[in-house]
């Protein structure tokens, strides 16, 4: 081959991120849904429908993760959960926010105990404050319609007589295992995602 002549090149700013988000957001929403379906298939002891929100945040940033989670809730609200459940979309935004914060603080290394400690504190105890506010304000703050949390609710209520505490403890009892496990799952998957998919800085 003859010597290659050097061509003058210019730098071009990509415009693809916007349209990538348009496709990534429904994908995250659908993964949340399928995550829940697989939990049913395996009869695993979690809800399994939030790790995709966390994953979306880890690889594409807060906006995509939050929007994907929000969209999932909107769809569930329109189809099976009923309209008021769309407010749980904000719970997904809170999850994306916590995930984003954990990422910024570097609590994403599964080998470090700090990751687990902060995940338990933020997802297990701080986040339920938020869900408790929603479940009382919009859903009356009664017991959940699953027997185990309902039993915990009844036990706290009858021993303390504190309505808010009963709601909070009921939520903590479901969120600690579910959100912490979901966070671990999302970190494991994120570590296997090829670099070219990672848009989050």
């Amino acid at each position, binding site marked *: 081959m003859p010597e290659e002549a050097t061509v003058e090149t210019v730098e071009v700013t990509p415009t*693809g991120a916007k*349209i*990538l988000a*348009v*496709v*990534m*957001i*429904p*994908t995250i*929403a*659908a*993964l949340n*849904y*399928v*995550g*829940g*379906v*697989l939990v*049913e*298939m*395996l*009869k*695993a*002891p*979690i809800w399994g429908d939030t790790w*995709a929100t966390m994953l979306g945040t880890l690889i594409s940033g807060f906006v995509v993760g939050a929007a994907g989670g929000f*969209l*999932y809730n909107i*769809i*569930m*609200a*329109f*189809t*099976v*959960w*009923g*309209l*008021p459940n769309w407010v749980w979309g904000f719970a997904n935004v809170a999850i994306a926010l916590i995930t984003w914060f954990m990422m910024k603080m570097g609590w994403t290394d599964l080998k470090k105990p700090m990751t687990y400690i902060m995940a338990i504190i933020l997802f297990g105890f701080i986040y339920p404050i938020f869900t408790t506010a929603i479940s009382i304000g919009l859903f*009356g703050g*009664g*017991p*959940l*319609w699953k*027997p185990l949390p*309902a039993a915990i*609710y*009844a036990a706290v*209520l*009858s*021993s*303390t*007589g*504190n*309505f808010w505490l009963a709601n909070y403890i009921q939520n903590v009892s479901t969120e600690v295992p579910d959100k912490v*496990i979901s966070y671990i*799952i999302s970190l*494991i*998957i994120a570590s296997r*995602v090829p670099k070219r*998919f990672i848009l989050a800085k």
Partner: protein
Amino acid sequence: MGISLSLLKRTAVEVETFVQRLDGRVKFLYFIWASILVYIFYDFILNLIFIIVTLLLAIYARVAKPIAMTLLVIIVPWIAIATPILSLPLGFPWNKTIIYYIKFAGYEIPVYLEGLGWGITWPLRIGVCISTAMLFYLTTNQARLVATMFKMKVPFRFIYMLIATFQLIPLLVDEANTIFQAQLSRGLRTDVGIIKKLYYYLALVIPLTLSALNRVQIRAIALESRGFSAPVTKTLMYEAEFKWMDWIFLSTIIVATIVLAYVYITYGYSPIAGLEYIWG
């Protein structure tokens, strides 16, 4: 999840009754309207009336079965769990009016009105929200749904994301099934301990997620190549338009609002059940 997936996969043959023909915006308004009203009032009988009206419309439109099923799966057990916990002396802080005593093992256990009312009214509120939302969703096909949102000035980008999720979910569920079957033949079992189950869960979701992400980029460039970002007004093949039926339905809602406003002013927030509002 079984019900929800069958809801997402629409049947090819659609019935066309006046409920289906109603403009999507009118049905959307109906469910927002009903949902707000049941939160303004605190009356389980009123909630029941809303549910019955919605179910009647649903029966006429032949979509009552999934709605009734959802109510049976969510609302009925919820009431069954909530009413005993709240109405028996288990610490519900607003309990004061005893309406009945249950004789049990030599004890007389009081049943409180406040807890009972609360335990029935709240799930039924959600029941109204669920049934009206489902009526809208099940009787508005995709073309009409898109046209409805388009008319409501929802940005096309958002309309796309919503509809694309509906299409992606069954595709991903199919793929999840394939992966599940493959892992089953490689020794995955469902009758194992919690840790093992989570391990299996990972074995399912990792390949699923990676393949889904793989497709994101190509889907995005395929969309872009087909003019998705073109700065023009998109053409829809179906246009949402108000017909006389829509005006009648709309007028009914307005008349009902006026009547209910009168009822609220005259009889208060619990006109039929006569419950007392607690907290807030």
